[in-house]
């Protein structure tokens, strides 16, 4: 059975980068920089810091892409690198929180299948600033990249149950902020 074109393209790109081809590295950066910047800007306070984190992220990615064994894991891996750079330079609490988070049983977390309409994007974009850092982070990964709970868990490096619960409460918090913004 044929794989999806995007998946093949991603693997091809990773293999070419691992082969050290400069055109592939340029392509990789061009493909991901905008989305990574969006995510990083939701993590750090100042825009200049976000650009700095993005640059540092690429330095780390280019230095260690040879060690990426599973090309399908490129997306969570890129976000995890960006998160780690942001945390080590500007947001140490991101790393500390991961250690202290209690394990949550995924079965005990209620489902929230709410998918916002795409015409609500502007509200979401503006409301994200009013949410806590941990809620903002999971929502960006979910809405921007359409990441599943296990993928977000791989980025944030916490158990899936914790992410499921965090996503549930983040969606609730976002809806509350959006409702308030609409009223005002």
């Amino acid at each position, binding site marked *: 059975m*044929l*794989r999806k074109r995007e998946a*093949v393209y991603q693997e091809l790109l990773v293999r070419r980068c691992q082969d050290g081809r400069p055109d592939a590295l340029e392509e990789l*950066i061009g493909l991901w920089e905008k989305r990574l910047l969006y995510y990083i800007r939701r993590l750090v306070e100042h825009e200049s810091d976000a650009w700095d984190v993005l*640059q540092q992220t690429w330095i780390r990615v280019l230095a260690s892409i040879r060690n990426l064994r599973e090309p399908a894991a490129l997306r969570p891996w890129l976000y995890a690198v960006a998160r780690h750079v942001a945390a080590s330079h500007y947001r140490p609490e991101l790393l500390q929180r991961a250690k202290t988070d209690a394990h949550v049983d995924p079965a005990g977390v209620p489902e929230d299948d709410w998918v916002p*309409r*795409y015409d609500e994007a502007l509200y979401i974009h503006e409301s994200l600033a009013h949410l806590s850092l941990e809620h903002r982070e999971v929502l960006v990964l979910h809405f*921007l990249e359409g990441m599943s709970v296990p993928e977000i868990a791989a980025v944030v490096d916490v158990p899936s149950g914790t992410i499921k619960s965090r996503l549930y409460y983040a969606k609730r918090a976002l809806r509350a902020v959006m409702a308030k913004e609409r009223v005002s």
Partner: protein
Amino acid sequence: MIEDPLEELGKRLLSYESSDAQFGEKYRREISTLLRRELNPIGRWVQFLAGTVFVLVGLFGIVVAPHMTNPPQPVVRWAGLVGCSYMAVWGVAMLICAIWCLNPNRYQVLWFSLGTLSMVAMAAVLLNGSWQAEDTMLREQLTHGAFALLGILGVSTIVYFLEYYHKQTQLKLLELEYRLAGLAAKMERE
């Protein structure tokens, strides 16, 4: 019609992001330097230091080896000279990589050819010298050394080419799969 609401939402979120053009320009300058330079600063320093050591030791060996009198056999002097010359050439190559920020991994074929040449030269010297050596024990040692070098060379050649062709074939297959997936997607749309 919107196929995936989350995908469309993601695109729209990105479109609302504004950024300072000044930061963007600075970032792009840095990235283009980063892409031009294939070595990071630490890798560059490692290459530079190792290259300097190799060149110095190699040059020292080239000067000293022809005047060695203990052991007296000329073969030892020749083998020393070949080994030290190779070391110096390798050191110069490392320095070139460090100065122009080139990733040495990209020039594997060149390193491999240099290594092969020096090993062949070393083995030839040892085998040739072994017949001239009067000392039987030394002759045996040199012959064993030469065959060991040729053995290492043979194994590393096989491993190198197997890895190289495996990687190239994998890339070609992926390119083919990518084209097929594109055709399949096109047929599906039609």
